[in-house]
């Protein structure tokens, strides 16, 4: 049977993929790192909490709800906050600091909700885990199956959207060169809004699955943010495929390396788990700042030059 450690790692990596693709997509369309991104997962966590503990329904009903809430908030923030700031000529740094402000506001709202639930209904509204509410299929926890399926669907979906649909092509055009795309008749604002809608939704979705396997708290999203940024940077921050690969690599490394280090150094290592994605991030920035994209392009360039040398010799 599959050891629990592997289940843990795959589950975490799936969630990271859902989050890091979103982070990368917002980065590509708005050109800023969205520090509020992982906090959207916090909304998902509390949607699951509401569905399971207050409405007493199946936790998977929360997934579409969380998607819609995250998506709605993402689109709202892009149109109202980022859009307005851009109109008034905000710089990239001030846009980024505004995402930090959004993070603080969203976090405060989640905390207010958690306080409210605790004080009026007497439920434990922080540090909860709902593994007991999950179903099992062939000795596998349901959330593992669902999250793997979702990550697979996401990869397939993004691939199809980006290569086969008109919307995907206009999205790529917007990412490549916003000004040129708008000259060619692409509705850049619409494309960006839809991107933020999707990414907010994905983050909400990831959040809604999280408490079925890991501990949920208002701050969970904030803690995951560093792993998400590391995945995205490892993937080259400018590539959705890179983010998927980065998410899996960081997720698996984070869980597996922590356990391996715990075996050799002792149990105290587990508290410093966050330092693993951080170290990877620092190494990537030092050695290959463009992540996988840079590495692959480097190989391609070298391959091309080799081929041309061969051709010249002939």
């Amino acid at each position: 049977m599959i050891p629990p450690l592997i289940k843990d790692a795959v589950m975490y990596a799936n969630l990271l993929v859902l989050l890091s693709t979103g982070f990368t997509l917002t980065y590509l369309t708005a050109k800023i790192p969205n520090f509020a991104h992982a906090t959207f997962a916090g909304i998902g966590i509390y949607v699951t909490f509401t569905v399971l503990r207050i409405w007493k329904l199946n936790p998977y009903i929360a997934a579409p709800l969380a998607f819609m809430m995250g998506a709605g908030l993402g689109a709202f923030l892009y149109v109202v906050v980022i859009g307005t700031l851009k109109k008034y000529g905000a710089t990239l740094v001030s846009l980024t600091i505004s995402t930090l402000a959004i993070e603080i506001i969203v976090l405060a709202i989640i905390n207010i909700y958690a306080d409210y639930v605790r004080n009026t209904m007497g439920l434990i509204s922080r540090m909860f885990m709902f593994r007991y509410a999950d179903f099992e299929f062939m000795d596998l926890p349901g959330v593992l199956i669902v999250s793997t399926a979702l990550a697979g669907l996401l990869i397939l979906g993004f691939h199809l959207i980006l290569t086969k649909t008109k919307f995907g092509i206009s999205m790529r055009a917007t990412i490549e060169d916003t000004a040129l795309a708008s000259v060619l008749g692409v509705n850049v604002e619409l494309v960006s809004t839809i991107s933020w809608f999707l990414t907010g939704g994905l983050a909400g979705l990831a959040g809604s699955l999280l408490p079925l396997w890991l501990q949920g708290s208002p701050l969970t999203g904030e803690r995951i943010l560093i792993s998400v940024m590391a995945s995205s940077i490892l993937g080259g921050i400018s590539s959705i495929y890179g983010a998927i690969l980065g998410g899996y690599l960081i997720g698996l490394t984070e869980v597996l390396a922590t356990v391996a280090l715990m075996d050799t150094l002792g149990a105290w290592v587990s508290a410093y788990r966050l330092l693993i994605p951080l170290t990877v991030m620092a190494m990537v920035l030092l050695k290959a700042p463009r992540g996988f994209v840079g590495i692959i392009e480097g190989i391609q360039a070298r391959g091309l030059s080799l081929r041309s040398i061969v051709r010249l010799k002939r």
Partner: protein
Amino acid sequence: MIDIGLLTNVIIDILTFVAIYLILAVGLNLQYGYTGVPNFGLALSAAGGAYMTGALTGRIAMTIYGVGEGLDFMSDNIKITELINAHLSHDPLMGILIFVLIIAIAMVINAGLGYIASHPAIKLRADYLMMTLMAMAEAVRLIGTNYYPLVGGTFWVLVPDLFAWMGDMKRVGVCLIIFAISIIVFLAVQAMVTSPYGRLLRAVRDNEVTAECVGKDVVKTRTRVIIIGSVIASLAGVLYSFHLQTVLAAAFTRTDWTFWPWLMVMVGGPSNNIGAAAGTLVVILARRMIIYYKHYFEAYIPFEVIWLEQIMLGLALILIMILRPQGLIPEKPTRVRGLPTKLLQKLREESKET
């Protein structure tokens, strides 16, 4: 009747917080406002300074006075601090010496920390630097909250009262010392940005390529500014710890120590130290008012008031950036010693017209 004692306490409280955050805001202004380096890891340096204070003050004083034989610094922290305080209450010289020593150590260590934290991304685009510094700040807090011998992990550590010899005047005295240091930092940064070096910083901010072309090393300038900024921010952490006489590792969050200084600089107007000071005053007054009056609301709302405070100040930042992106006091043309400001103003307006 106004209670005089209470009023003094309120004034001391506000002055101390203004002084501590003024240091952070001016340090950030030097980095972001004047040099265009967006330091999202201010919490890193503040935490660095505070952790050094918490970890070293007690241990150094313990060694000097030879107290606490056979006691463990962490688990017998309260007892050891009491013993040290008894010695310090009639030893002004040693108190001041330790104070200066701790500041010096914190500055040196944080210069190194600032260099290490910014090193991976200093050559890259600003957004990489923002992400890296923010992640590094979280990492330092993580180490602080988990490594028990440093500042007690999830518990806290007491800082010996280095100014116990001041007796009844201690609260006022410490407040004045913190304020004086804050003013010195303000004047030092002001002197720096009006010097030729300040013009180099603005050149790096406004046009990297031009700065490179005239032979200035942009990466080196940025690194230096981050190191100076980290040193300044660490001072805020040190003074905050001496003010509270405790260090709680978990307190150095990115909301309190990175976001608030950014809000102050944005409110006051980046690249203007007077503006940063005005912003600090406004934000601190707003925050303190909420804290003083929060018990009026507490009875009516079923959640903690602190969350309302965060929503309000978060919204304030977004509104300020929409309504008045240049801040309360906009950037003035660089003062150049020997050139009248009026002439500069005229030149600037002419260059804007063309």
